[in-house]
């Protein structure tokens, strides 16, 4: 039974959700709504689990003065500061109608200015900084890897250059000025060529990948439903 009960639960739930997709009756939709409500509740509790894990790992590193322990300490301090400001900030909201300090939902920037300042000036800035690394990494990756070693690589390179220049308005503008208008629109604009590449060859390739991925996902789902793969049994020796 220890092996069979999880299998039954997984298979029944999987088949039910598959059938529910095609059955629009209210009872089935209600069932799906209830299950998704459970997912939302579990998602909220899962965050507690994750934070506890992170704090425990970081604290152990700090206590043992392990390698790079200051980073672990920074993690703990960052969590404590944001949590405190967000929760405690709600206790010090000035209610304009009564003139007293009161507790409120304390993370909206206008309700909790300190949290808002930290969010916009610290978190937002750091998040954008990491994303901006992409620009530099893309340039170095492009220089290193985009080489026309054979015909297909050359075609890829040509298409990439056209799309890159087409998505840059300045080059598209000069293309129009020097090639399109003098020839009375006999030559397509760079934007139109780019859109054609994205709409036809790119879409064809993307659809092929989507088909393959979809069928592979279907096959994996079938394997899980019939019990050939049991990822939910991890840790039980099965």
């Amino acid at each position, binding site marked *: 039974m220890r092996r069979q009960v999880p299998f039954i639960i997984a298979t029944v739930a999987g088949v039910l959700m598959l059938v529910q997709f095609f059955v629009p009756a209210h009872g089935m939709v209600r069932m799906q709504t209830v299950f998704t409500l459970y997912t939302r509740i579990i998602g909220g509790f899962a965050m507690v689990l994750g934070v506890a894990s992170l704090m425990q790992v970081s604290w152990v590193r700090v206590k043992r003065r392990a390698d790079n322990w200051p980073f672990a300490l920074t993690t703990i301090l960052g969590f404590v500061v944001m949590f405190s400001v967000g929760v405690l900030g709600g206790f010090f909201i000035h209610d304009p109608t009564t003139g007293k300090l009161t507790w409120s939902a304390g993370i909206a920037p206008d309700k909790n200015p300190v949290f808002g300042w930290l969010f916009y000036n610290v978190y937002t800035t750091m998040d954008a900084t990491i994303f901006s690394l992409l620009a530099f990494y893309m340039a170095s990756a492009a*220089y290193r890897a*985009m080489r026309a070693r054979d015909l297909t690589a050359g075609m890829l390179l040509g298409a990439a250059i056209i799309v890159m220049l087409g998505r840059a308005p300045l080059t598209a503008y000069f293309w129009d000025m020097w090639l399109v208008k003098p020839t009375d629109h006999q030559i397509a604009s760079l934007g139109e060529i780019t859109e054609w590449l994205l709409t036809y060859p790119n879409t064809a390739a993307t659809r092929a990948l989507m088909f393959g991925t979809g069928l592979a996902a279907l096959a994996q789902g079938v394997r899980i439903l019939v019990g050939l793969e049991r990822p939910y049994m991890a840790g039980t020796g099965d």
Partner: protein
Amino acid sequence: MQQPRKGFWYSALRIDRRYIFMLVFVSLTVPFLFPGMRVPVEVQNPARQVYDFVDGLNEGDGVLVAFEYSPSTAPELTPMATCVARQCLKKGVRVYALSSAPEGPPIAAEVFRRVAGDYGRTEGEDYVNLGYKPGGVQAIVLGLAQNVSSVFPTDYVGRAVADIPAMRHFKKLSDLKLCVALSASTVAETWMGLASARFGVPVATGVTGVMVANFYAYLDTGQLVGLLGGMKGAAEYERLIAENVDPERGYWFATRGMASQSASHVLIVLFVLFGNLAMIMSGRGQRRRRR
């Protein structure tokens, strides 16, 4: 055996990354020193389709904007949200904002703060920020299809939706005329797959430039009514807004970024061409030395 002589082209193939990073930095930042520089942007069909669809809505219709992104991608996606909000609020179309990411609601609040006052629109009457709900996009969309108040019983600032006048016109997903999903991940696909394909609500999407190639397939089949791709898509929409809706406030952040984007794209193309030239020349040099 003799070692090949290391010439200029050999070194060029192995150039230190930091030189590339420095040149990219210069190309990205110098255009911002000239704030008045505006690069003309040619509007393409995917962005125009979004504009046309919103233009076809009537006063009193409802549009949902899903802020499914974090501040890191805000420079690309917030201009799209601003344009949608501007076009809708000017026409008297109600705008509802929500998010499955915790960073989404403050961004939505900022967009409304910037735009709503320009057209005399008030929160609760003309626009609502419903806030954030954990549990994933799928759970949110399925719940909205049934009953909005079961997913969002209060808005972002804690007001009950029963007390919000605008929410009388948005009780379930099918009350809306358009969903605009702004995302830096495949969350937009989930919105499209559920809201459009399952519940028949038209969906337009705005994604970062990296993701845009993925969504042309959906645009082609009509599963999306329009597509805004990256900062260029946002700049195209800003141009449409500036020419047709609000000439004074239409051009904003995305248009300003086009000069920088153009410079960096040209630089990367030059890098690629130079790298290929170095590959060819260093290959010729090696063949000559072998002979």
